[in-house]
C-alpha cells in the first residue's frame, strides 16, 4: 500500500500565495494544483467523520465547489491561513450534510453518521487490519471535541498551530485536549481489544 506522506506544516506561504492568486485570477492549472494537494486530506477527514464513502465523496466535491465560489467572489482574504480555512469549510459543510441527512429521517443506522466501521468482509484486498479497525472504532467512540482534534490532526494532517487558528483556541489547550484524547483512546482499546467483530458490531457500511 502506497503511503501518502503529508506535510503537517503545509507548503510555505511564499509557495501557496502565488498559486492562490493565480487560481483567483482564473488560472485553471493553479486551481488544479490546489485540488491535487488537498482533495485526499479533505476526503480522509470527511470519511472519518461520516463513515460513508459515498457521502464523503459528495461532501468533498461540495467543499471544493464552495472554496472555488468563495475565491471567485472575494470571500477569502489571503493571510497565510488557507489550510485552516479550507478545513473549516469542510467541517461546516460536513455538519450541514449530517444535519440534512438526519432531518430527512431516512432509516439510516445512526452509527453510520458517527463513523461506522467498514465491514472487513467488504475489504477488496481481503486483508484485515485489525489494529487499524479497532483504532478507527475507538476514535468513533470519543467525545466530539476529542474526536475532532484527532481527525484534524491525523486524517486532515493539520498542525496544532493550524488547528488553533481554525478553532480560535490557544495551542496549549489543543495540546492538552490531544493528550487527553490519546489517553482515552488507549483506554478504549485496552478495554475493547482489537477484534473485528467487536469493532464492526455486525453493522455493514451504508454505501449507495
Amino acid at each position: 500500500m502506497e503511503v501518502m506522506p503529508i506535510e503537517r506544516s503545509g507548503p510555505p506561504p511564499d509557495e501557496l500565495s502565488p498559486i492562490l492568486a493565480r487560481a483567483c485570477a482564473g488560472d485553471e492549472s493553479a486551481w488544479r494544483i490546489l485540488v491535487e494537494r488537498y482533495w485526499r486530506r479533505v476526503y480522509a477527514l470527511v470519511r472519518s467523520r461520516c463513515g460513508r464513502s459515498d457521502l464523503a465523496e459528495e461532501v468533498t466535491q461540495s467543499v471544493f465547489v464552495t472554496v472555488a465560489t468563495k475565491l471567485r467572489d472575494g470571500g477569502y482574504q489571503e493571510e497565510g491561513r488557507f489550510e485552516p480555512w479550507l478545513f473549516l469549510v469542510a467541517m461546516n459543510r460536513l455538519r450541514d450534510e449530517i444535519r440534512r441527512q438526519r432531518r430527512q429521517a431516512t432509516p439510516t443506522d445512526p452509527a453510520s453518521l458517527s463513523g461506522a466501521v467498514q465491514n472487513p468482509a467488504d475489504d477488496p484486498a481481503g486483508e484485515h487490519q485489525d489494529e487499524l479497525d479497532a483504532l478507527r472504532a475507538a476514535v468513533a467512540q470519543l467525545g466530539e471535541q476529542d474526536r475532532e482534534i484527532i481527525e484534524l490532526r491525523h486524517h486532515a494532517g493539520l498542525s496544532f498551530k493550524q488547528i488553533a487558528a481554525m478553532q480560535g483556541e490557544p495551542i496549549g489547550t489543543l495540546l492538552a485536549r490531544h493528550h487527553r484524547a490519546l489517553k482515552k483512546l488507549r483506554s478504549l482499546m485496552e478495554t475493547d481489544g482489537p477484534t473485528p467483530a467487536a469493532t464492526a458490531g455486525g453493522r455493514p457500511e451504508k454505501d449507495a
Partner: protein
Amino acid sequence: MTRTDDHNPELPCGLRDLERSLDALGERSRSDAPEGLAERICAATSGTITALRPGELRLSGTEAETHGVFRIGRHWRLAASVALLVIAVVAVITLQRPAINNGGDTGAPVALSDEWVDFEVSFVSDSGFDSDALNSLDSELDALELSFNEAWTLDESLTFNDGESL
C-alpha cells in the same frame, strides 16, 4: 511521513506509539480516496474558476497579480457606479440652479432712466424733429414776431378825420 517540530512534547512513550498508529490510520484513509474524485472535482469547479479569466470585469492587473483576493465584488462595483451617477446628477443640478433662478437676467440690470432716454430719442426721431430743426423754428418765430410788431406800428401821418388830429 514528514514531521516538523509541530508535535506534542508532553506525550509519554506509550502515547507516542498510539500517535504513530493514528498517523498510519490517516494515511490509510487518504490512500483509500477514490482516484477519479479529483477529476470530478476539477470538472465541477472548472466553470467557477474560468469565470475569473482575463477579459472579465476585474480590478487592476497589479492587484490581481499580487493577491487577487482583494478584488472588489461585482455588487460593490455596481453600488459604487450608482453612487457616482447620483453624485454627478446632483452636481449638475446644483451648478445650474443659479442660472435657473436668475432666468433671463443674465446681464447687467437695465436702468429705468435708460429706457426714458431711448423713448425720448425715438420720439424725437419719429416726430421728424431734431435739435437743429427746433432751433431754426425758434428763429423763424422771432422773425415773425418782429415783423408783426412792425406792421402794427401806427404811422403818425395817418388820421382818420380830415385835418382833424386826434
